[in-house]
């Protein structure tokens, strides 16, 4: 069930197991039958830790979504609220509890489980509402880093970037530090910490502090990670803005992957069985889980989309050849062997069918003229062409009222690639946007400026070309089929964040000292002392393991680039990736937009 988590260099099943154990312990504390009332946002992440069957084993009989008013009836002994520590949710819970008492005898016990952290603020709120005493157990479930795949952890903290860079609210950084402490408790103290950016510095400081808070608990686990690299998202604002061109990246760009699941238009997935041609097409979106447990997906997810087709057709040949085998199977033994392979082959065939359908869906979009035009402009910006004047394509898109987020991505991309825009250009874009999409977006534009995505070129100097050249961010001779450099993930642009990781491993950051100074925030190195018994003696040819933590989000393309580095034969480093949230340009920009609606509370 969790095979995909143990496939990597670091066995992340242990982390999931720890999470499941904690959950079971809590559930068992509330003896008797239970109903869980869910903060809706949590169901997705929880699904990656424990399925319904686990809850069921522990007498969870009903599940509800948290909403105002009265709780639905349920003949259970315990009502447990699973919630994020947010004031508005506390008010709903209070309402639930208060309206409960009026209608029935108080037979049900209430409990509350805060995810990921118990909050004094929230408990005070419950107290003010007069319901704090109604809860028998009030505990926290430290679901900080959730294992998504064998080499991928995410906090799935929706608005981490916005909170850190816009609102100066470092709650998610505290959570990140806590998560790293948990990770170290399971996988050993990480001896080396590198970082770039203000948030990275803050997280490292908190980790060191937290370690000091528990002087007695000297960790005696042999360290699995050699290095931790903390990266601020605002060190590299460019990568998420560009359109990802890996298979997985494109699925995310087009359909959005949530908690490893994607919902796809159903038409392409209609069962193609003869005799049922007249049957209605399914109307429910097709929901698929995407992770490395699926062999084929693991192979193609990180490839440039242009290289996916050939793999799929090769696979198709192999599979049909395998099915042909049955005609050659003559003896009973041969037939038996064939039959024993059938389930695996059938799974492979259905997996192939699914991905062929997805690839077709994506291809319809990537071959469209608009996709091509958009990509051309992006690539021009990234390679430094005409970044300092108003772009025609962008203008035309505004005139035709293309989706606002697309426009914002383009304008921000241009701004980042030009170290800010000239006053005239910036104002022109802003005016165009306000006139076309509405003046209310003035606040969104303001947010983008605060986050540094959109800015005025202050000095006459544009640093981006220097950074691009020194760090080889633009590669003209990109090989999409058999890549030799990470730039294949954007068909030319090598993500800055991953380049930083690559250069750190070899030859070290000292070589790019000058460029590092141009990027925002401090860069630093910390060492955590290990007892002599735990110091590593590296075997010949054994790879180092580096944990790269993206504070503020990471894209699938960047993940693909890091995986590519892990697989390089002479790379010498394997990467595990952690992040506050898996993002793409669209949902990232969306999180920064100001929604002008009456606030919900």
């Amino acid at each position, binding site marked *: 069930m969790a095979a995909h988590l143990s496939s990597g260099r670091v066995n992340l099943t242990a982390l999931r197991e720890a999470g499941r154990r904690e959950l079971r312990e809590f559930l068992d504390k509330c003896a008797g039958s239970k109903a869980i009332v869910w903060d809706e946002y949590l169901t997705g992440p929880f699904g990656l830790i424990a399925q319904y069957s686990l809850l069921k084993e522990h007498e969870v009989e009903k599940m509800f979504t948290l909403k105002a008013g009265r709780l639905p009836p349920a003949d259970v002994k315990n009502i447990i609220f699973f919630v994020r*520590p947010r*004031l*508005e949710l506390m008010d709903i819970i209070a309402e639930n509890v208060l309206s409960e008492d009026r209608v029935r005898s108080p037979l049900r016990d209430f409990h509350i489980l805060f995810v990921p*952290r*118990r*909050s*004094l*603020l929230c408990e*005070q709120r419950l107290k003010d509402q007069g319901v704090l005493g109604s809860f028998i157990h009030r505990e926290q479930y430290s679901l900080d880093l959730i294992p998504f795949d064998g080499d991928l952890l995410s906090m799935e903290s929706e608005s981490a970037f916005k909170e850190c860079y816009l*609102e*100066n*609210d*470092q*709650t998610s*950084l*505290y959570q990140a*530090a806590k998560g790293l402490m948990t990770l170290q408790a399971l996988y050993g103290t990480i001896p080396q910490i590198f970082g770039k950016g203000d948030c990275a510095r*803050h997280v490292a*400081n*908190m980790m060191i*502090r937290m370690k*000091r*808070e528990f*002087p*007695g608990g000297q960790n005696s686990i042999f360290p699995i990670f050699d290095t931790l690299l903390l990266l601020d998202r605002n060190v590299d604002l460019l990568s998420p803005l560009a359109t990802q061109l890996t298979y997985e990246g494109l699925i995310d760009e087009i359909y959005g992957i949530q908690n490893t699941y994607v919902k796809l238009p159903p038409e392409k997935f209609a069962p193609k069985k003869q005799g049922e041609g007249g049957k209605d097409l399914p109307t429910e979106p097709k929901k698929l889980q995407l992770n490395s447990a699926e062999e084929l997906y693991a192979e193609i997810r990180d490839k440039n989309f242009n290289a996916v087709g050939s793999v799929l057709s090769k696979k198709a040949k192999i599979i049909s050849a395998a099915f042909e085998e049955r005609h050659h199977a003559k003896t009973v033994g041969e037939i038996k062997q064939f039959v024993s392979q059938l389930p695996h082959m059938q799974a492979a065939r259905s997996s192939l069918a699914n991905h062929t359908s997805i690839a077709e869906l994506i291809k319809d979009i990537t071959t469209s003229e608009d996709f091509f035009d958009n990509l051309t402009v992006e690539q021009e910006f990234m390679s430094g062409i005409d970044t300092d004047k108003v772009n025609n394509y962008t*203008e*035309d898109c*505004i*005139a*035709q*009222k293309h989706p606002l987020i697309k426009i914002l991505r383009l304008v921000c991309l241009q701004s980042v690639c030009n170290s800010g825009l000239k006053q005239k250009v910036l*104002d022109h874009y*802003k*005016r*165009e946007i*306000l*006139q*076309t*999409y*509405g*003046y*209310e977006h*003035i*606040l969104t534009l*303001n947010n983008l400026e605060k986050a540094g995505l959109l800015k005025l070129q202050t000095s006459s100097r544009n640093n981006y070309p220097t950074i691009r050249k020194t760090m080889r961010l633009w590669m003209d001779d990109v090989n999409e089929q058999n890549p030799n450099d990470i730039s294949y993930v954007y068909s030319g642009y090598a993500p800055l964040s991953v380049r930083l990781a690559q250069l750190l491993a070899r030859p070290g950051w000292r070589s790019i000292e000058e460029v590092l100074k141009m990027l925002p925030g401090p860069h630093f190195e910390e060492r955590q002392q290990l007892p002599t018994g735990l110091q590593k003696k590296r075997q010949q040819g054994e790879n180092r393991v580096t944990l790269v933590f993206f504070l503020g989000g990471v894209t699938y393309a960047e993940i693909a680039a890091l995986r590519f580095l892990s697989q390089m034969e002479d790379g010498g480093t394997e990467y595990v990736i952690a992040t506050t949230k898996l993002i793409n340009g669209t949902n990232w920009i969306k999180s920064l937009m*100001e929604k*002008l*609606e*009456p*606030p919900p*509370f």
Partner: protein
Amino acid sequence: MAWNLKEDLRDCLVAAAPYGGPIALLKNNFRKEKSPGSRPLLEIYSASGVPLASVLWKSGQVVELGWTASEDLLCIQEDGTVLIYNLFCEFKRHFSMGNEVLQNHVREAKVFHTEYGTGVAILTGAHRFSLTTNIDDLKLRRMPEVPGLQKLPSCWAVLSQDRVTIILLAVGQDLYLLDNTSCSVVTPPGISPHAGAYVQMAVSFNYRYLALFTDTGSIWMGTSSLKEKLGEFNCDFRAPPRQMVWCTRPRSKQRAVVVAWDRRLLVAGNSKECIQFVLDEDSYLVPELDGVRIFSCTTHEFLHEIPEASEEIFKIASMAPGALLLEAQREYEKQSQKADEYLREIKDQNLLAEAVRQCIEAAGYEHEPETQKSLLRAASFGKCFLDKFPPESFVWMCRDLRVLNAIRDYQIGVPLTFAQYKQLTIEVLLDRLVLRRLYPLAIKICEYLRLSEFQGVSRILAHWACYKVQQKDKSDEEVAHAINQKLGDTPGISYSEIAARAYDCGRTELAIKLLEYEPRSGEQVPLLLKMKKSQLALNKAIESGDTDLVYTVVLHVKNELNRGTFFMTLQKQPVALSLYRQFCKHQELETLKDLYNQDDDHQELGNFHVHSSYSSEKRIEGRVAALQNAVDEYYKAKNEFAAKATEDQIKLLRMQRRLQDELDKPYIDYSLHDTVYNLILDGHHKRAEQLYRDFRIPDKRFWWLKISALAEREDWEEMEKFSKSKKSPIGYLPFVEICMKHHNRHEAKKYAARVTPEQRVKAHILVRELDQAADAAIEHKNENEMNLVLSKCTAATDSSVVEKINRAKAQTLKK
């Protein structure tokens, strides 16, 4: 005894704690005249009579003294108030046994111990009983009335059976049992009808046995459930004894009662015989788990049943294996061959292991180190001749005895027996040493027994530190430094707990200094808040990075300070300020405005007003007013762009309202683009033009916008007119595209002819004129274009075009 008592014990109120506990004396308590010079004096001594503390009694009349399980002294006053003092006569707290007592007075009281803790039972002047089973969790229980009770009972006792506390009382010849709800008359089984009136009763240490003494000198012994009689003894003394206590040993079959009169002590048990002692002085009996402590002005003795092992070994002419082994060892030391003979005798009976065990066990019962040593030496000697005798019992006995000898030293004065020590556990013993402030000894014991730091040394150091902070004669620096010197980073030490104690003693500065050593901010903050050091608390909370903690402090400070000071405080803490802003954004919008105002943050104020024009204002006037505020703020912030844009927005809103009124269609909250688009869609071209000019919409965008709207309206005529109004700033390809989008190939073709030569191929392809597209491409001699055309061709219908292009390509190649 080390004390120097001038008074007779009988003139004092006496209480001695079990488990070798301290002795409290209240002198002059019984004098009727209360002249200032003869105030009662409360003195506390160790079991060896070393004075621990004394205090002049200034409170009310004391009825009874007693010790709690944690060695606090309870002083029960006539008015029902119970005052609690520690070992050093320092007042801790008080509680009351109920209001009813104020009138009727407490006449008698008893302190008792059960699994619930330490309890107190009182008997009032109205002959009613009240009790609480746990003074730390005070729940008073008023016991039911005893019918017809006119005078105080002659004697009474508290019993605990199956976790229920009950009272047994005797009135003359009648016995009553009082439980929570009822009062019942009981008769002990097998008691002689002529036994007479009960004058004294005693309950054993474990509440299992009961002894009754009648005025005929008869002693009845039985179980406290009154279901079984264990024995009876008739003595010649009829006077009511001063004290009667049980003297048994756990798991022993022998049961005996010790009865004391002024000068006589009698031990009665199952047998017809009894043992009598003469008492030279006033004595006081303290029941213990395994015997009775008897102390007087000069001595302190322990009376107990001789344990079997000791008896076996030391009985005259004993041939028990232990005795023989002891003898063998003595001979061995004398280098006599008799040693071998004794040893052989034991070994022949295969009893050597038994002998070693006996010696080890007996050593535990001895108080004299010399005797302990000789027994242990014998055991050690015997062990040499045994294979595989597990060494633990010997090793542990040596360790335990060393600890016991150390605490029995008269300067320490805790005369525990081995059985009591085991019952008490080492942890509790350490606590008691700590209570007596014997920190060095406690630490030595921890180290000697190799207890984990967490449960041993750290705990004691923490207690020491808590005591240290009470030393008022030392400066804060000195104390803080001394504590840190000693405690350092010892795991399990909670500096915040020590600081809390310092604060309780009124030493706030010291508490702050101590908190500096606390590595866990979560622990620092609540205490700092309690001490009203909110500024410091805020610093610590921010340092921790725990935003929840910061919020907690901020909201606490908010209630504590007036608004101005609160804002000033936040000003100095950007992290706290931004968090509070977030809080306000969701909870207190008005405060958010005040915050921005204080900072003169005009940009944010502008944003704030824009926000409220959407979220809190419904009427147009209100929205315009809010936006006007925003404009003003944006100007102050020198953000000309935002100010102008917002002015435009106001202009647009007003315009939209006019349009809405005049055209009776909703326009409000459309963007400028959508407004113009909708106007064109509805054919209001003039008005659209007006907006285009008023808002200086760039030509290019206006053209795009207009042709899109016209195409949607399918107003091809107007479009053509428009296309000819002047030279298109966006060229004519968009016309082609838009016509095709609305499936009008005929119109599209018109514009395809007008596009610039560079776009011609594309235009022809769009209108599906591949032949012309090919011509244009060939004319351009552009291979890319040719390929593009080729890619659009299908073999069936466009073979001529394909041929044409291929020919052209071939020609280009030749050149």
